[in-house]
């Protein structure tokens, strides 16, 4: 499948998109290889920290504390950045944020901007808005550049082009950079990207970024990255515009000690990110003359108001949950119909859409808990998924077929008599479906009951999803409780 628009308002439901992506053998291989590599690196580095669990707990407390006092910390950030010569803008939603960035870019006289990798600007579809205003945005993160040149969309929040392999990247560069002779070694590709980007760094004087953290105490923004292209965007241009979700604030500079240890290990399996930049306002002769920070709400306040969903905002976007997720492993990120893929996407997207879109996402999980296990800020993702499922059910109303069926089953569980009757009824109903095995399949491991067992190979309707790939052992002739009755007589 080629490009899918990553807009939850128009995206296919998760099962439909996943079904298409499951046919993409090469993509799935790329996803499996890449996530396994990152996971192995992460595991090694986590193992060398004796205090990993304590670090996680500290990070959780810091993030939960911020969320409980978000207003105060944001105002502190604004005061301190303003004092340092920067300007803070408040955007209620995507449209306001787009308008602010467009007008700031125009004010700077920009017809082009260079961009640091930022999922927040993807969330608000900023590039499209800039384009409409006649301003071209150049992505400078290598992965984002690959996607931009390949007319593709991110499938991972840390490694956005994770679904592409080197051969595919080479094809894109050859075609889009007009380099028919391009070699296939990693150095060849890096060199091609470097030449392409250097020219942009020197020519374009306005940069747009996101940020990993805002520091309330100093008014600084912190950006971590692996390539140094981000630092180019931070230091060379005259004007820097950062678009940052309001939840990204940290109280103190010292909190970075906890966060950066966790983030680097969780995100890329490194002890420290190669480039850690903190930019605090403006100063003569060094860096941008103008620094703007656009604080984006875009439904985060609503998420904050929900006691059970709130912990979602603790996220530091490390993507460890994506890499660990057995569902993401099969489909890659595009199936989630949002820039936020994987487990964090499954809980964040529907909440940012105020539960009006992305309703299939909370169900895109087997609740295996691998995400919770690795999350460096201890977001109990399965718990939030279950909470959001309940919200989805509430919105579907009592007449949805699934609701009727599950309510019926629930009444059985509220009475032993009804439950027993249903067991008997189930046995009767299945006689049409169940088949006795003609011969003993397999190795007959010393069990008499094996030859007697009956199996169901086909089920009707929705339940057919089961029997397409699995047989079902039929209900045996005596339930446990019937056996117990007989035994205790």
């Amino acid at each position: 499948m080629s490009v899918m628009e990553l807009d939850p308002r128009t995206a296919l439901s998760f099962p439909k998109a996943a079904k298409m992506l499951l046919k993409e053998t090469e993509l799935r291989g790329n996803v499996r290889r890449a996530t396994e590599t990152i996971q192995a690196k992460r595991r090694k580095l986590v193992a060398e920290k004796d205090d990993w669990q304590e670090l996680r707990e500290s990070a959780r407390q810091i993030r939960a504390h911020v969320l409980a006092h978000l207003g105060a910390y944001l105002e502190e950030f604004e005061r301190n950045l303003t004092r340092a010569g920067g300007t803070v803008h408040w955007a209620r939603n995507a449209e306001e944020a787009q308008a602010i960035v467009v007008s700031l870019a125009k004010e700077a006289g920009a017809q082009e901007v260079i961009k640091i990798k930022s999922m927040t600007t993807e969330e608000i579809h900023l590039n499209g808005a800039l384009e409409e205003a006649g301003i071209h945005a150049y992505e400078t993160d290598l992965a984002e550049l690959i996607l931009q040149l390949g007319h593709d969309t991110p499938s991972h929040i840390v490694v956005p082009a994770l679904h592409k392999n080197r051969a595919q990247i080479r094809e894109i560069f050859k075609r889009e950079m007009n380099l028919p002779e391009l070699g296939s070694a990693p150095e060849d590709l890096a060199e091609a990207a470097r030449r392409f980007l250097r020219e942009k760094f020197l020519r374009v004087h306005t940069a747009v970024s996101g940020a990993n953290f805002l520091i309330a105490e100093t008014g600084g923004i912190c950006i971590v990255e692996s390539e140094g292209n981000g630092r180019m965007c931070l230091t060379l241009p005259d004007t820097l515009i950062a678009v940052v979700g309001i939840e990204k604030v940290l109280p103190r500079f010292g909190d970075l000690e906890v966060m950066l240890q966790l983030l680097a290990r969780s995100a890329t399996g490194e002890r420290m990110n190669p480039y850690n930049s903190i930019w605090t306002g403006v100063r003569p002769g060094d860096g941008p003359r103008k620094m703007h920070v656009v604080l984006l709400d875009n439904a985060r306040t609503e998420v904050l108001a929900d006691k059970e969903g709130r912990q979602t905002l603790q996220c530091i976007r490390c993507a460890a949950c994506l890499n660990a997720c057995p569902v993401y492993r099969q489909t890659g990120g595009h199936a989630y119909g949002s820039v936020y893929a994987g487990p964090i996407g499954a809980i964040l997207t529907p909440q940012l859409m105020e539960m009006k879109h992305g309703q299939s996402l909370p169900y895109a999980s087997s609740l295996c808990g691998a995400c919770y296990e690795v999350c460096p800020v201890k977001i109990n993702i399965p718990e939030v998924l279950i909470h959001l499922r309940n919200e989805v059910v509430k919105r579907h109303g009592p007449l949805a077929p699934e609701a009727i069926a599950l309510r019926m089953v629930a009444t059985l569980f509220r009475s032993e008599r009804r439950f027993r009757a249903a067991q008997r009824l189930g046995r009767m109903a299945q006689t049409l479906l169940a088949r006795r095995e003609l011969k003993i399949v397999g190795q007959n491991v010393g069990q008499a009951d094996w030859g007697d067992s009956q199996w169901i190979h086909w089920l009707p309707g929705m339940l057919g999803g089961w029997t397409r790939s699995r047989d079902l052992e039929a209900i045996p002739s005596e339930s446990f409780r019937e056996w117990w009755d007989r035994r205790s007589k």
Partner: protein
Amino acid sequence: MRVALFITCYNDTLFPQTGKAVVKVLERLGHEVEFPAGQTCCGQMHWNTGYQAEALPLVGRFVSQFEHAEAVVIPSSSCVAMMRDHYPIMAERIVREGGDASLPARVAALLPRVWEFSEFLTKKLCLTDVGASYPHKVAYHASCHGLRSLGLGDGPEALLRGVKGLELVAIERKEQCCGFGGTFAIKNADVSTAMLEEKVQTVLATGAEECTGCDNSCLMHIGGALHKLHAGTRTRHIAEILAAEEKGAL
């Protein structure tokens, strides 16, 4: 000890042989087993699918059926995880909604006496040899809830290593979910199947005759695929293996 068995709704209906095996093991170890008759379901399917209101009444039902017991044993790791992870918050919600105010305290008092079958053996009774004999090559599937919520760790494998004649083989990437996930297997049948295919490949690669575990729901999922493939390998709950004795099968 007097042990109350919560068989769980699906074991009761679909896998009575597992319940019989649990009874056999516990009685062989000298314990008395009782089966409170009013028990039905822990509420997991409803709670996890988003039907929380439907799951709530089952908390009080479980508590009143089992709070007298010295120990409650449940041969299903996901049902135990359901109780440990959710019953306390469910009980509080019941109170908020005007229900039984005594429930949170009763849940808190009961939960420490609720055990998954294998952990009852390894953590409560501190046993790894329960006198079983089963001369077969067996692979152990670590169900997610047992692995992550209950922290069963090496317990079930230690029990299997204690079985006479049993050859235990390891499944590659054993922490990876088999793709069952309750209604996930139906709502996301295609992804679930893709996950299952990987799991089945790694199970078959072990060359095991049987694949065992502490949760018949995952085993039903894996076993259903093995059966469809005519793979010859089958699944069996760990209780049935621990019940097997030298003279013959259960």
